[in-house]
């Protein structure tokens, strides 16, 4: 079908467009990081970074998310080689790991809140909850995306369109991983060290 010409062109366009979207998202995170760094000492009598962070806990989250990034990458690779079933299993693993990461984050947040350290306590905590929470929100979107992708893969025969959709998801998931590395370094490691 002559349709395929436009299909390759579209692949290019969508990938470029998605990269550009990621760039805009980087600008959003850059604004949030800048805000966090300005406000990190504005504790207004509440706890400071070193009072509330646990590097071990964040390290566990990091390991889980990195692993999920790995399973996601292999999943995309397998799909490109035409192995749909294996790809779906690894995507499922990605979803499970992502959900685990999110569960840990919810646990961390609820612990803080139950100790009385809420986002209303100080500007520092507002910035913390917002920066980390925005990443968590992206993870949630990624999970919904991955689940719809799984349903689509289950119901549809493999094709260039499916590979394209998978590549975009993988790009998004790796991007979230990179953002998390920055959060881990700037928020948690530097916070514990301060």
């Amino acid at each position, binding site marked *: 079908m002559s349709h395929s010409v436009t299909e390759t062109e579209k692949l290019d366009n969508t990938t470029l467009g998605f990269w550009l979207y990621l760039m805009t998202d980087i600008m959003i995170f850059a604004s949030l990081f800048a805000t966090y760094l300005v406000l990190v000492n504005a504790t207004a009598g*509440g706890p400071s970074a070193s009072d509330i962070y646990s590097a071990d806990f964040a390290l566990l989250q990091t390991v889980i998310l990195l692993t999920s990034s790995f399973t996601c990458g292999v999943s995309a690779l397998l799909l490109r080689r035409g192995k749909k079933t294996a790809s779906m299993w690894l995507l499922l693993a990605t979803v499970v790991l992502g959900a685990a990461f999110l569960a840990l984050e919810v646990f961390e947040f609820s612990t803080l809140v139950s100790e009385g350290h809420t986002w209303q306590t100080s500007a520092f905590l507002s910035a913390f909850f917002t920066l980390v929470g925005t990443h968590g929100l992206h993870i949630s979107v990624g999970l919904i995306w991955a689940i719809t992708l799984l349903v689509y893969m289950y119901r549809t025969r493999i094709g260039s369109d499916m590979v394209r959709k998978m590549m975009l998801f993988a790009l998004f998931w790796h991007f979230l991983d990179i953002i998390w590395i920055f959060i881990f370094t700037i928020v948690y490691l530097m916070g514990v060290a301060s």
Partner: protein
Amino acid sequence: MRANHKLAVGIGIVALLAGLFWWLIAGAQIDVLAPKGVIAQQQKTLFIFTIALSAIVVVPVFILLAMFAYKYRDTNPKHKGYDPEWKENSKLEAVWWGIPIVIIGILAGVTWYTSHSLDPYREIESKHASIPVQVVALQWKWLFLYPEQGVATLNYVVMPKDVPVTFSLTADAPMSAFWIPALGSQIYNMNGMTSKLNLMATELGEYRGYSTNINGRGYADMSFTANVVGRDDFYSWAEGVTTSSSIAGINENIFNALKTPSVEKSAITYKLTDPELYNHIVGSYMPHMMHDEPEDATMDAMHMEGHH
């Protein structure tokens, strides 16, 4: 209409507008261009200088625009020189890259120099020591504190002629801004921090001051008067306030009443018995801040955005 008629109508309209504005300006009191202080005086000079410098580019632009539009209109019976492919000329382009670069270069030098010489934080040189005045912007009134004289005033400030005054400014309200056009330079008043402004009046008189930043419903009524008096008169005025038995001292109750949002146009005088009042007002917004240098806070915000 023929081109000549159009030109005549155009010139007529321009003349009418010019006449209208001449009539308007003739009777107007233009504070910025009639300065009564050293800072405003230099700013007026700078104002005229930048206009003159810009005119070097702008006047030729207007002349060329009129000339080309008139000469190369397609209805011109004497039209000649049509050359649709004439589209590059590096010498000409060098001219209009070059001239603006030189002009902006000059202006950049002037900018650097005046940013320092007219920096509101910079103390004005004078044989007299500078008088500190603390300014608190409230909703919607101005409170002036004279820690050295022990005087506080509402909605008016008294300044000695030819003596520099160092204003320290804060707010106990949404961000406001302090401006006396006849004396020069405005600066923001912000909660929990201090900004500085140095001014010196050179002529006796009463000048108007405003808040230039919107801070709520009573914003338009938030004006004050700057009374410039002789140096001796200033001290005897302050003396009179502190020794008067009929003038109350400003205390917490009075301050809290002033802080309540309201329009208050009258000028009121108080004694200032607590020289720390200003610091209490600033400090009330940052009980636990790690650093309490207001200037630092400003610079943090500046640095934060420096990456873009």
